[in-house]
């Protein structure tokens, strides 16, 4: 479990989450002076109304403006650990070498293994090791991009820390958020981690070469995705065999053309 965010606790809490939310939905507008609050003449009511993600959101907006000014398309990739983020990026860089200039930012709690794998493709790669923090935030991206020559890039791919919970809340300033789910991790991932999937621009089913061995129920998976993320682009591929890579490629091309 992550010490900064306590994310390991979430799944435990989620069990009785729904009744807890609906039961409290009507304590709307609790008046100043809740029942447990003893009145004191010196009390001052201080309205604040500040989003707790305000700082991150502002840095993300500044990243976004910077990317726009430099003409770089930024795509972030999130998934549970091991769903195939690095493998997809490796394959993408390999297949598209020479067609456009791509760079990668890769986030992990520890090790630069992924960055070393990716650097073999000759693309510029920056590793962010987050320590105990289980997600990337906009400030980490702002620091990492200082190490790229953005003028020379067409595409920047950001691999988030393997985690389907916390990265959902943090805007990085990217143009598109891509969420992966592999055929080996269960068809109902979107229902279990709805916040992550609801914010996805594209959902990619990975490792399709293993679908049969995993008894992957494709129809059930597509139904879950459609219900949780009705507007997301849907792509199915295998980074190992290359099956389906052309629709991923098409998705990236559309993004690059739009800029």
């Amino acid at each position: 479990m992550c010490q900064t965010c306590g994310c390991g606790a979430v799944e435990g809490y989620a069990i009785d989450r729904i009744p807890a939310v609906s039961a409290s939905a009507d304590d709307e507008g609790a008046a100043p002076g809740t029942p447990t609050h003893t009145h004191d003449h010196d009390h001052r009511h201080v309205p604040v109304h500040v989003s707790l993600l305000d700082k991150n959101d502002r840095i993300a907006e500044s990243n976004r403006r910077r990317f726009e000014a430099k003409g770089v398309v930024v795509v972030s990739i999130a998934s549970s650990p091991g769903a195939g983020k690095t493998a997809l990026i490796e394959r993408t860089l390999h297949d598209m070498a020479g067609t456009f200039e791509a760079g990668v930012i890769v986030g992990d709690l520890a090790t630069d293994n992924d960055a070393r794998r990716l650097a073999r493709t000759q693309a510029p790669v920056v590793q962010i090791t987050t320590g105990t923090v289980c997600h990337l935030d906009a400030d980490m991206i702002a620091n990492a991009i200082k190490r790229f020559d953005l003028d020379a890039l067409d595409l920047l791919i950001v691999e988030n820390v393997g985690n389907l919970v916390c990265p959902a809340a943090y805007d990085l300033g990217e143009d598109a958020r891509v969420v992966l789910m592999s055929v080996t991790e269960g068809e109902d991932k979107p229902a279990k981690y709805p916040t992550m999937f609801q914010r996805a621009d594209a959902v990619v089913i990975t490792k399709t070469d293993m679908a049969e061995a995993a008894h992957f129920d494709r129809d059930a998976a597509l139904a879950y995705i459609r219900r949780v993320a009705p507007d997301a682009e849907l792509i199915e591929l295998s980074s190992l065999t290359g099956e389906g890579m052309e629709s991923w490629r098409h998705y990236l091309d559309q993004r690059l053309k739009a800029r």
Partner: protein
Amino acid sequence: MHEVSLMATAVEVAEMHAREAGGTRIRVMRVRIGAASGVVREALEFAFDAVTVGTMAEGAVFDVQVVPTLCYCSDCSEEFTPASVFRECPTCGSFTADVLQGMEIELASLEVT
């Protein structure tokens, strides 16, 4: 989720506003959390106790207001609160991605002395 770091930010922002208002102690801290924000109320309450130790908010009443999710169905112009994580319009059965309300993660107000 990252309830501990959110709470740390909340206390930091709260102390700043409390000081600006000339206060020395925060007695009540109110936050608004959207039901679809991904933040878990119990985890937040747990984090509050841990994070406020030694701050102006130690011992304060922590009041969490959960803001219900409100979705919009563009097929039938209906506003509705979804019955589950699936945002299914109760009128026409289509699924929507338009959320009007329920994503809030906000420090709402304080009572200071």
